[in-house]
């Protein structure tokens, strides 16, 4: 896999359970809005956990591919998109090829 390696923070919205990604200023449903965190991930997670708005916060590996964030592991890519067998319920319901991004 090519692309710059980065680390991003993800978690789940406490109330809805939705997958969210740290944008540098807040949380987004879309992985494309995630930003790389260098050495301050621990501090961000501690600060955000204290707010108790997002739960299960953790750092994952990702790469920048054609300017977009792509989680390194398939599990995180499925988290980012939605179930590959129900693309109608995913974040890209209008894109029949969305599932190929996961593989």
């Amino acid at each position: 896999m090519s692309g710059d390696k980065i680390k991003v923070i993800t978690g789940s919205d406490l109330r809805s359970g939705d997958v969210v990604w740290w944008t540098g200023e807040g949380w987004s449903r879309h992985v494309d809005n995630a930003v790389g965190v260098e050495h301050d991930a621990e501090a961000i997670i501690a600060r955000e956990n204290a707010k108790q708005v997002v739960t299960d916060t953790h750092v994952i590996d990702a790469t920048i591919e054609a300017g977009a964030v792509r989680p390194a592991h398939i599990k995180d890519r499925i988290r980012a998109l939605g179930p590959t067998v129900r693309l109608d319920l995913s974040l890209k319901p209008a894109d029949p090829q969305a599932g190929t991004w996961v593989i």
Partner: protein
Amino acid sequence: MYEYDQHDQAMVEARVAEFRGQVARRLSGELTEDQFKPLRLKNGLYLQLHAYMLRVAVPYGTLSSAQMRVLGDIADKYDRGYGHFTTRQNIQYNWIKLSDAPQILEDLAKVQLHAIQTSGNCIRNTTSDHFAGAAADEVVDPRPYAELLRQWSTFHPEFDYLPRKFKVAIIASDTDRAAMRLHDIGIQIVKNEAGEIGCKFFAGGGMGRTPMIAPCIAQFVPALQMISFLEAALRVYNRHGRRDNKYKARIKILVHEIGVDEYARQVQEEFAHILTLGLEPPPAELERIKAMFVDPGLESGLSDDLDLSDPDFALWVDQNVHAHKQPGYAIVTISLKPVGGIPGDATADQIRLMADLARDHSLDELRVSHAQNIVLPHVKKADLYRVWQALVEAGLATPNLDLITDIIACPGLDYCALANARSIPLAQKITDRFADIGRQRELGELKLKISGCINACGHHHAGHIGILGVDRKGLENYQLLLGGAESADTSLGTITGPGFSEDGVVDAIEKVTDVYLAHRDEGERFLDTYRRIGMAPFKEAIYG
């Protein structure tokens, strides 16, 4: 069917109120996730890949039409229009909001359902034979005993923090339709030579990373001592089961490590002690429960005649309809495995339709099978054609019961946080490959089961053909197993060799079926042929 009394109802309602308060405190920040997580899990609420998942218990797989209808309504009102029936006879919702969870539990409580103990290291929902009360081969209806187990195990204070989760299955016939010997405790209700009803106990079965078939630990325990014996079996496990390593914490490891004879000896010793304490529920309680299961209203004198002139209907009857103990009735299994579909999923509309069919044509009863299908247990043969037509209309009339496309599959990596590989897309590819019903029937009974990780929720160890999804350096890879079974002749599958890609494993399955067709003797199922000729010809075809 069992109806809650005031005590049952009060317990469940109190639990809903308690959980409502816990959720409110979590949302306000009063409780941390570490404090809250064990509380939500005890109410069946997981945090999965995309959202919270709620697992609702279906006690011993039995539902009324009113209960089934509420399950459909919950799918519409709080989820995304569907539910997933599981291999433990439960239903799971994949898109639950934490803030909605207390209200869902309140809706469930109104129809005597709950999600209590569907997670955590406690006694889980007791499972049973999905043909219970309708099959001709049972000694008695096992469900009153299962209900007694439900009442005994719910909130049992001594067994609320076991070394690991604990699953009990109870059946009452030699034909094991509940994978009984692959449970922590399996109970077979039997009749002795004196005509007395008792329980044959098996202990230490299970799948997961260390699959084991439960050995028998007691040939005959009087039925009115069932709870005391189970209490003893749990007590010995609770005392000696390992708590230092979760992978060695299940009862199967204890039974294996100290030996079945020693485990059985300790249980008998504890059992003798417990009998002196008088812990067994009074016989009147079992009789009270039994009275609710006696007769669902079966009529006598009905005709067994059936017009099979419609070939599609005849095919469905041949594949999905079983004999009932009462003349004029039949047991209908509704397949939730359409070609290209998601095993075990049903839309809210389909769930409500099945509820309506149960109300109108099955004496108000449904069952969830561990094979992720739905059973209408008491359908008049005279109503079968009408029922089938309604199922056809709803996309629920796939005539593939126990055929290669009747696949058990866990949610896999599409939904599950524990999974290593996807199960559902593989199931879909296999059903696409073997879509032709004539080809399926030519292959005959062939139980194919897929798990997306070693936890084996998809029962891959017990598949005639089993598939285990693994993570191989970040890529999905699939191991193939042959020769498992979960009925009266329970056996564990053997891995064929190196794993495959998703497409590769579909090709391998096709080669396996070709070997079977080339070698089978008259009347042999796939499993019979495998057991006769062994692994070698299959390996040669796959890897040669």
